[in-house]
């Protein structure tokens, strides 16, 4: 299959307007004759479900949570970008576009990113109208802050819980449509298979997590808004349930998976404290606006600190290395996430890390407190400081925070064209689930923007174009493909339950996480990746011969749920390794040790790798086929990112 990105002709700034005019429309009276399935109710799913229902389509929405409001979008803290230029500081649609392309290290599509920047302004208006309580100035207008390396203040926020407030806005719109009967909501339902009829996505198979019942659902189109796959690393800042199963099932039915190795490591997370650790907690990188990152200048000093012979306060100013300020004088502590993360790892690799494990650097607020006072600092970061203290039992007003990078976001995902359609006709992917807008590295406060852009302002136009091309006749689950998919789900569940081995699903997941973090994490090299590939294959064989589960399918069985998700992670992990091996360059969050500048910065190879790597499933334990979508840059000049 030829990868056609369907990018509209014409100047960048006019593409979306023109495209909206050129797409086919569904007659308003016919919209109610089309059914759309939406899987996932985070920002991308809830906004799409509400908006499509408002237009008149019949929507069936699915979530494995007990309520659509619990999706992991809720945990986003920092904010949402929009090119409003309310601050009169030189922001514009083009600047947000440019920053996003550059921040993504030139591995995303110009047209998609420009559209994202364009609709960003509508998102804020929509959320305000819904009653989202954004932060405001004393004059009553919306407040902004500068965030994650941006040199303009374009980030809108709701204290430290922007994600929750935006999701509650989308959830309220969704709830209204549920009440109207335009959305049928299925909670505690996990999608376990995609149904493809005559080459088109026609439905899904789900498992009711309470009763174990396997159900089939038909629709004219299916939208996956199921989030990212960061939990392939076991430890990540994702919620525990986050998984790759829905997109992976679609991948195995023909949807290409793009740039799987592009994962984002977030620099400001609370360090690991022990083997029992079940997840990592992120603290908003807005902390880097006022916190200063440092480690002791010498290994000896760091050793004494870790050994408890000296305390932080005993380290004089001249013995502290504020390494980000030193190496990047113009951006300082606000360098992009990948740069901040890699430098923290480097400091720890040099033996200068702090905390009992040595895998942490300091984030110090002493100067900010001296400059602005405790009250002001607490107003900005109070909830984050409280969270930190709850977890670590240390008071960040008195002691510098200890932070370490953790897996946070996955830029890769299902390949989609400009319409957000995957390589399976009728199957769409929105939000973190797709690969489209963030290239090799996502900027802070851009995930919320993309999820809502896709759901509120892109899919309502583009899905109509597809639906208008098919007759508004009812779809049913009568086709044999539904029966087949349903039987496949039953067989797989029974297989998992019948292994009766000795190791728990979590043990396999942790083992996979170690392999991925050590060899396909913050930095990668060919040798390590080759090793990881073999280890994953071995672990996968062990999984299918030594997995231990109890209970049955016909009940709430949380270990069975985990086992199914881990099985898919064990396949995805290998594809990530293959993708990282294939990409013989460093870009954004993908750092191949073999390809770096003399100053240890990522060294891109635009001549050979300015493409999207889209992988096609070819069968169990078979190498996947690589398809390349060449990226065309007509409006920005490719430069080496420099934050010096």
């Amino acid at each position, binding site marked *: 299959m030829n990868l056609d990105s369907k990018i509209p002709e014409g100047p960048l700034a006019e593409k979306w307007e023109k495209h909206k005019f050129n797409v086919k429309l569904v007659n308003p009276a016919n919209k109610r004759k089309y059914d759309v399935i939406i899987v996932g109710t985070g920002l991308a799913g809830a906004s799409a479900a509400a908006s499509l229902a408002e237009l008149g389509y019949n929507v069936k929405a699915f979530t494995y949570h007990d*309520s659509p409001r619990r999706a992991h979008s809720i945990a986003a803290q920092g904010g949402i970008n929009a090119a409003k230029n309310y601050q009169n500081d030189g922001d514009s649609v083009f600047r947000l576009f440019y920053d996003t392309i550059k921040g993504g290290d030139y591995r995303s599509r110009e047209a998609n990113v420009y559209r994202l920047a364009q609709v960003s302004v509508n998102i804020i208006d929509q959320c305000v*109208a819904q009653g989202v309580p954004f932060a405001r100035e004393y004059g009553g207008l919306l407040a902004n802050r500068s965030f994650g390396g941006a040199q303009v203040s374009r980030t809108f926020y709701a204290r430290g819980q922007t994600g929750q407030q935006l999701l509650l806005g989308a959830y*309220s719109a969704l709830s209204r449509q549920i009440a109207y009967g335009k959305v049928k909501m299925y909670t505690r339902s996990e999608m376990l298979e995609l149904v493809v009829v005559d080459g088109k996505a026609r439905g899904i198979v789900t498992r009711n997590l*309470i009763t174990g019942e396997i159900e089939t659902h038909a629709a004219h189109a299916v939208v996956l808004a199921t989030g990212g796959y960061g939990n392939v690393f076991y430890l990540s800042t994702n919620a525990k349930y986050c998984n790759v199963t829905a997109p992976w099932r679609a991948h195995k039915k023909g949807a290409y998976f793009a740039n799987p190795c592009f994962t984002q490591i977030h620099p400001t997370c609370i360090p690991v*404290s022990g083997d*029992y650790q079940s997840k990592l907690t992120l603290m908003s990188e807005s902390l880097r606006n006022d916190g200063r990152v440092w480690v002791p200048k010498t290994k000896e000093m760091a050793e004494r600190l870790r050994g408890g012979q000296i305390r932080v306060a005993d380290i004089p100013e001249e013995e502290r290395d504020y390494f980000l300020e030193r190496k990047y004088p113009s951006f300082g502590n606000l360098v992009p996430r990948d740069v901040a993360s890699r430098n923290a790892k480097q400091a720890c690799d040099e033996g200068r890390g702090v905390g009992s494990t040595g895998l942490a650097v300091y984030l110090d607020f002493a100067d900010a407190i001296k400059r602005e006072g405790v009250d002001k600092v607490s107003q900005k970061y109070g909830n984050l400081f409280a969270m930190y203290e709850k977890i670590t039992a240390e008071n960040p007003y008195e002691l510098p925070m200890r932070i370490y990078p953790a897996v946070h976001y996955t830029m890769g995902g299902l390949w989609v064209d400009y319409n957000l359609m995957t390589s399976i006709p009728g199957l769409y992917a929105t939000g973190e689930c797709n690969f489209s807008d963030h290239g090799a590295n996502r900027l802070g406060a851009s995930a919320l923007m993309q999820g809502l852009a896709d759901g509120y302002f892109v899919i309502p136009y583009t899905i109509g174009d597809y639906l208008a091309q098919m007759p508004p006749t009812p779809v049913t689950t009568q086709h044999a493909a539904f029966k087949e998919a349903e039987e496949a789900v039953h067989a797989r569940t029974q297989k998992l339950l019948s292994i009766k081995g000795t190791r728990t699903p979590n043990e396999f997941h942790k083992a996979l996480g170690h392999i991925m973090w050590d060899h396909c994490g913050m930095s990668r090299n060919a040798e390590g990746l080759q090793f990881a590939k073999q280890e994953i294959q071995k672990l996968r064989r062990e999984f299918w011969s030594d997995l231990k589960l*109890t209970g049955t399918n016909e009940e709430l069985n949380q270990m069975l749920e985990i086992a199914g998700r881990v099985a898919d992670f064990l396949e995805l992990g290998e594809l990530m390794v293959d993708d990282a091996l294939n990409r013989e360059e460093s870009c954004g969050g993908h750092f191949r040790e073999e390809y770096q500048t003399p100053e240890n910065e990522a060294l891109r190879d635009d001549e050979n790798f300015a493409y999207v790597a889209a992988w096609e499933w070819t069968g169990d334990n078979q190498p996947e086929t690589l398809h390349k979508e060449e990226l065309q840059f007509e409006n920005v000049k490719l430069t080496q990112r420099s934050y010096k």
Partner: protein
Amino acid sequence: MAGNNPNAKPMNLTLKVWRQRNRNSEGKIVEYQVKDISPEMSFLEMLDVLNEDLLLKGDEPVAFDHDCREGICGSCDLFINGRAHGPEKGTTTCQLHMRKFSDGDTITIEPWRANAFPVNRDLSVDRSAFDRIIQAGGYISVNTGGVPDGNEIPIPKNIADKAFEAATCISCGACVAACKNASAMLFVSAKISQLALLPQGQVERKTRVENMVAQMDKEGFGACTNIGQCAAECPVGISLENIALMNREFISAKATSDNLA
């Protein structure tokens, strides 16, 4: 690994856990021992340890609700030693750490207890009643598109801040679990307040409170007798003031109802 505090000693604990196969079966308290629990663990990580042990022994692990483990998704919902989310004030179960307990402690763990929250299994409960209350009116009726510019609706900062405070509710249901009447007034009032305070919420102000309160009653939540346990146990500090505001909104709406039918 000792984590942040090299002096932290591992603990042995006795757990008394509510086990119930499904909604229709009888439940009972079952006792378990867990060993070598690090004080640095979260409460849910301690339950993970128990569940790994149970599974390896061929027993069925304890079902419990959780997800983000950052205190924001509102999934976790344990009644620990007779208190919603356990002994630490202003804390969800997932953010409760074992350093709040001592070696040799016996810890009783139950699900939320309320008729409107039936048990799915063990410690997991069904809180869909909350969703249905929101569906009855917990929104501003705007469609996507066609809305004014964000800055065309200026809102005084103190009002915006107050609305935000009410909006921080995470719908965990601790207020219901803590209340001897299993009343949902704090949850419902938080949403009513948020939208009643904001200019965007004015148009539907009266119908909203009428419809949401009617749905709340229909779901079988108890009445409010002004004890205030809900606010005392709320992990995100939703204020009792919201209930007062909701009562005022309700009476005022009933007296001048927009329901013309």
